[in-house]
């Protein structure tokens, strides 16, 4: 699954997001959370969407899943093609069919995503009762099977227990089991391991990667952690202020980032294997979505920023080896 240059636009694309725009109406004005995001995921591919809080990475995912709160949210443009169909043109009941059966989502906080008054067996089995019309008893057996699959020990004994009786890592496994239940073609995992400790995080990430390979699903992994991404992704899309600023196969981006923001991010994390002097810090603060700077949104924080950056919004320039960078001076960032 190494991403050769040719596989940058792998076909057939399972999911294609094209020029998506999402905004939120707030009391203080319109917050432009997503401003023209384009990405695609192929079958069996893992795309990592990397960004800080407020970069629009989760909002994009919610739009794809069709779980965006509308209002206040509004999709103002773009297409979301899933297996060739534009999801934004579907009726709500058709959309519901796709959700769960064809694509599923794993959330960050398993405890608040699970229903505290239903046993995990009932919650897992519900998928089969609703979507497959199974009897409760069969659904329960299916639930045990799923729990085995995500390696929860003593699944048969624990199927009747409630979410609070499981540890954080086990709850996240239950979330994964629930997402896998109907063997969807696409899974979106939104910060699946952020709430977990490192040793448990490694277990859960490994499990997710293994199941993804086994079932040849497409996986969109949303995260702010450059370390987690390096371990499992095939390709990375870096988001800033609601746009994708850089996209590349995973190996290349760490070796030679082609956007000053990516470069800054990589340099600003302390490393386990080195004790540096001063950390590189990107100056300033992430932009306020109500007032995104004109031109390139990153220019006020950018070491390469020039007059042109203040006025002209950079397109996603082609960078050799199937990469892309939304920086007028990407060559400088790339080689400098």
């Amino acid at each position, binding site marked *: 699954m190494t991403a050769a240059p040719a596989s940058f636009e792998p076909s057939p694309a399972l999911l294609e997001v094209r020029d998506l725009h999402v905004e939120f109406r707030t009391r203080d004005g319109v917050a432009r959370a997503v401003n023209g995001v384009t990405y695609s995921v192929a079958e069996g591919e893992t795309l990592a969407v990397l960004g800080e809080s407020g970069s629009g990475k989760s909002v994009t995912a919610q739009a794809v899943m069709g779980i965006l709160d509308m209002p206040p949210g509004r999709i103002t443009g773009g297409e979301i093609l899933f297996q060739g169909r534009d999801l934004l043109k579907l009726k709500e009941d058709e959309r519901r069919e796709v959700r769960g059966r064809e694509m599923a989502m794993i959330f960050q906080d398993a405890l608040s995503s699970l229903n505290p008054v239903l046993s995990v067996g009932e919650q897992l089995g519900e998928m089969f009762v609703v979507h497959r019309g199974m009897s409760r008893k069969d659904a329960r057996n299916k639930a045990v099977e799923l729990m085995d699959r995500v390696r929860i020990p003593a699944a048969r004994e624990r199927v009747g227990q409630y979410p609070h009786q499981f540890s954080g890592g086990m709850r996240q496994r239950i979330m994964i089991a629930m997402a896998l239940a109907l063997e969807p073609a696409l899974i979106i995992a939104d910060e699946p391991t952020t709430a977990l400790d490192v040793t448990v995080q490694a277990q859960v990430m490994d499990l997710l990667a293994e199941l993804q390979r086994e079932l040849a699903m497409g996986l969109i992994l949303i995260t702010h952690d450059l370390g987690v991404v390096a371990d499992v992704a095939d390709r990375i899309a870096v988001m800033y202020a609601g746009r994708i600023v850089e996209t590349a196969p995973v190996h290349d981006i760490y070796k030679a980032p082609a956007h000053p923001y990516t470069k800054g991010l990589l340099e600003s*994390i302390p490393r386990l294997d080195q004790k540096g002097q001063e950390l590189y810090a990107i100056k300033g603060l992430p932009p306020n979505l109500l007032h995104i700077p004109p031109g390139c949104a990153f220019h006020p924080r950018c070491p390469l920023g020039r007059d042109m950056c203040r006025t002209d919004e950079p397109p996603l320039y082609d960078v050799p080896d199937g990469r892309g960078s939304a920086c007028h001076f990407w060559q400088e960032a790339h080689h400098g």
Partner: protein
Amino acid sequence: MAEPARQTEAILEVRGLHKHYPLTQGIVFKKQVGAVRAVDGVDLDLAAGETLGIVGESGCGKSTLARLLVHLERPTAGVIRYKGEDITKLSGRALKAVRRNIQMVFQDPYTSLNPRMTVGDIIGEPYEIHPEVAPKGDRRQKVQDLLDVVGLNPEYINRYPHQFSGGQRQRIGIARGLALQPEIIVADEPVSALDVSVQAQVVNLLDKLQNEFGLSYVFIAHDLSIVRHISDRVGVMYLGRIVEIGKDAEIYDHPTHPYTQALLSAVPVPDPTAREHRERILLTGDVPSPANIPSGCRFRTRCWKARQRCAQEVPLLAVPAVFRDDRSPAAHDSACHFAEEKHVVPLEPGPVT
């Protein structure tokens, strides 16, 4: 900064520190049925001007330890000596004087600042309690100086916390911690709520302040990379105890305790090339409950080396016998019967740029 801590005078000495929270049953007649042993026998020293990092997973007792050090909680047993004086027994005026010198920076900059107070009032509030540090007339000026020191505009003194971003709020929390010119700052996960690009700014600020004011830090975090970056010495905590402690290179490059090795090997390294060259140790299972700590070595239930002896004998935190005559970096305190050195962090990193 990197001198061995033991030769220099310890500003803070902790011996046999315990904090147990009783578990009770019954409503009218409460009886104790057990205890959550959050901190269960911690020994450590902090030298003047040094940064001691404490790492561990959630539930290991590192935050309780922080609260004990600043005397927000009273220990069940054990002593905390500040410049030779046991502070756990102090009360009233004597305690107040000690507290001035040990200040805390909290994790969450969103909940640790009162939303109804201005930044000036938040940072200046310590002066209400310790008026001897700054007479009333000087306070505003002092607060503005502090804002400047932590890199905020002194004109923001009348603003409210909600007008600031997460990183800026953490700077306000740090300014409040500095207000009384303490000697020790206990920082409990000070950057974990911040975005990566902002984290670096705050870590650099903490570094700068240490040099400027000669502060000693106890830096508590779960992020091993950040702890290495900032610490001179590092202690690894598991279920209420320190299982391994030493200089940063001793812990990261020559760990001898299996838990430290597993923890280090699990950290995702942001470099796919380095990742391919390293061995991963995947621990099975979860951390046991601190209400029900395993006998003997508390890590044995998840340890791949565990033998009979581990269930019977509690390993002491000392230089393991195998390394005792050794001058290598592996000879540091490690609480394991079967300690051996293992390199888990790849030594030749692929450079980023």
